[in-house]
């Protein structure tokens, strides 16, 4: 079985390569079509035309587009993504320092989305056929229609500004040290034994993570409810009832186990979307992750950095989808035979 899974993952990864190539080429073309000149931008304003031309030649900007792409691709395969224009640092290392913060936020949000989705889905299922059903239904529609951008702002307003219950700027209170060991602040603060930093980081993570989690829980809720509906039409549920099992045991022991599969697949797909949703939440809460770096790069037309971050988002989303596909096969015996 392990061999099957490995073959499957390998096949998915190979299938992702052409997509990545096309995406990176597309990204390259869009960014080269811009009316900005990276050579002129990386020189001081009093540079002469000749100096700019020399710089253009040095950066390879005077060559044909396919050749430029080939040069960039060769560099990318060696981990060289070019130099950021505004920070004068390697774009790859800038991404590497901000990516852990974004992953930490995405994971925390995913856990919250899963808990809310599971709880909400069970509640939606339990109220079926009662007078509460239309209300719960409408409620889930309203929840479904609020994107993470609005949740971020609403939570910021209610808990940050009106109630002043939680901090809403940055990843840790100002004045506290920010250790850099693994890049994951929650882990690092424990590694250096600073419990106060850990606590502050947790408090700063609550609002962004909940905002993101709330935006993605309704889809999980609705899929869990409809898969539970489907499962309850199966014969084995009737049989369990005839055997005299309590409704609770039917739900926990039989129905939930079978309804979990479609829910889990969807949760995985959602995780891919959720990951790119971190960008907005990071901007709203000034959370120092990859999303804020991206917006910074976009505002300053920092092409190498935009390109690197854009590609990183695509790669992470593709990797998540590959992992979800494989997990699906592991959990679904019917697919393993093929």
């Amino acid at each position, binding site marked *: 079985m392990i061999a099957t899974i490995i073959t499957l993952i390998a096949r998915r990864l190979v299938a992702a390569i052409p997509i990545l190539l096309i995406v990176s080429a597309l*990204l390259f073309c869009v960014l080269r079509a811009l009316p900005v000149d990276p050579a002129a931008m990386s020189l001081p304003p009093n540079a002469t035309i000749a100096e700019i031309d020399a710089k253009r030649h040095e950066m390879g900007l005077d060559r044909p587009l396919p050749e430029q792409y080939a040069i960039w691709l060769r560099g990318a395969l060696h981990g060289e993504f070019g130099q950021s224009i505004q920070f004068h640092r390697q774009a790859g290392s800038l991404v590497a320092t901000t990516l852990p913060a974004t992953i930490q936020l995405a994971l925390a949000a995913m856990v919250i989305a899963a808990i809310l989705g599971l709880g909400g889905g069970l509640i939606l299922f339990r109220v079926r056929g009662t007078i509460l059903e239309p209300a719960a239904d409408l409620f889930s*529609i309203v929840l479904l229609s609020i994107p993470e951008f609005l949740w971020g702002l609403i939570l*910021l*307003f209610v808990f940050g500004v009106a109630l002043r219950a939680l901090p809403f700027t940055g990843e840790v209170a100002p004045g506290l040290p920010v250790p850099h060991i693994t890049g994951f602040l929650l882990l690092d603060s424990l590694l250096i034994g600073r419990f106060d930093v850990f606590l502050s980081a947790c408090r700063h993570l609550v609002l962004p993570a909940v905002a993101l989690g709330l935006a993605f829980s309704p889809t999980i809720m609705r899929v869990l409810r409809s898969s539970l509906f489907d499962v309850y039409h199966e014969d084995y549920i009737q049989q369990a009832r005839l055997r005299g099992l309590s409704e609770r045991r039917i739900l926990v022991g039989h129905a939930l186990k079978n309804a979990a599969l479609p829910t889990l697949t969807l949760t995985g797909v959602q995780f891919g979307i959720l*990951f*790119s949703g971190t960008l907005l939440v990071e901007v709203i809460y000034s959370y120092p992750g990859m999303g804020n770096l991206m917006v910074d790069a*976009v505002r300053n037309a920092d092409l190498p950095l935009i390109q690197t*971050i*854009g590609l990183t988002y695509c790669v992470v989303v593709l990797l998540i989808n590959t992992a979800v596909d494989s997990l699906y096969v592991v959990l679904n015996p019917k697919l393993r035979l093929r």
Partner: protein
Amino acid sequence: MPGPLARSLRSPRVLIALGMILCIAGCAIFSGFLAPHDPDEQNLLSILTPPAWATGADPSYLLGTDSLGRDVLSRLIYGARTAMLVAFFASLGAMVIGTILAHISGYFGGAVDWIIGRMVDVWMSFPPVIFSLILMVGLGVGLSKVILAIVLVDWTRFCRVLRSEVLIVTRNDYVAAARLLGFTHWQTILREVLPATLPLVITLVSLEMAIAVVVEAILSFVGLGVGADQPAWGQMIADARQYVYQSPSNLLLPIMAIFLTVTAFNLLGDGLRRTLDARLAETGR
């Protein structure tokens, strides 16, 4: 059984949503009459004044002023114009491209279908927010640029969903009959396939409008939206985010505006989906 349109207009969801949308659209169309001030007029002597019911308010600014002394109410009303323009034209554009490609893809099948399908795959492997940000770097700020960016990102939403619907419709006997009667392919698509997929198209447009409103707000919030000369809810939020303790209402009001608009479009989409789709309407779910 009443027609689908009449059925839709009796659904409370659709009616409530239409009422809300009419109000917002009214603000958008008549913003010149409704707004008490010029939305760009700065009054640096009275910046960040609170709404009229709070202490220290200036009665000529009903909902207070922002950090440049501009009237918040007027900016909210003109912001509705920006949001509605983007919602209308962006979803229309995405619909036209997505629907045409979906019908070609699903009807003809084969190599065309494969190419369009792979195009959608590549497009969708790009997270939409990242994609639209990158496009805005390329296009520059401005109302038409925002619309274009949304169209270029979101046509896939229509294409993907509609293609499978077209596939189902095309298998019907009446489509084959139309071909036997001597209809050309294009006549068949226009007269036989499109009417059957239209309910889904309308529903998708309504949902896309909600998405467009949010995307416009996001781009304006980041500073890559319609541009500084055009009032937009996203800009108002970005401005208020900096002075959140001095003037919390400035943050709350545009959030509420976006929330109500998005909810209205989604409610409309949900109501239409339930009433226009014959299969859903019969089961009553």
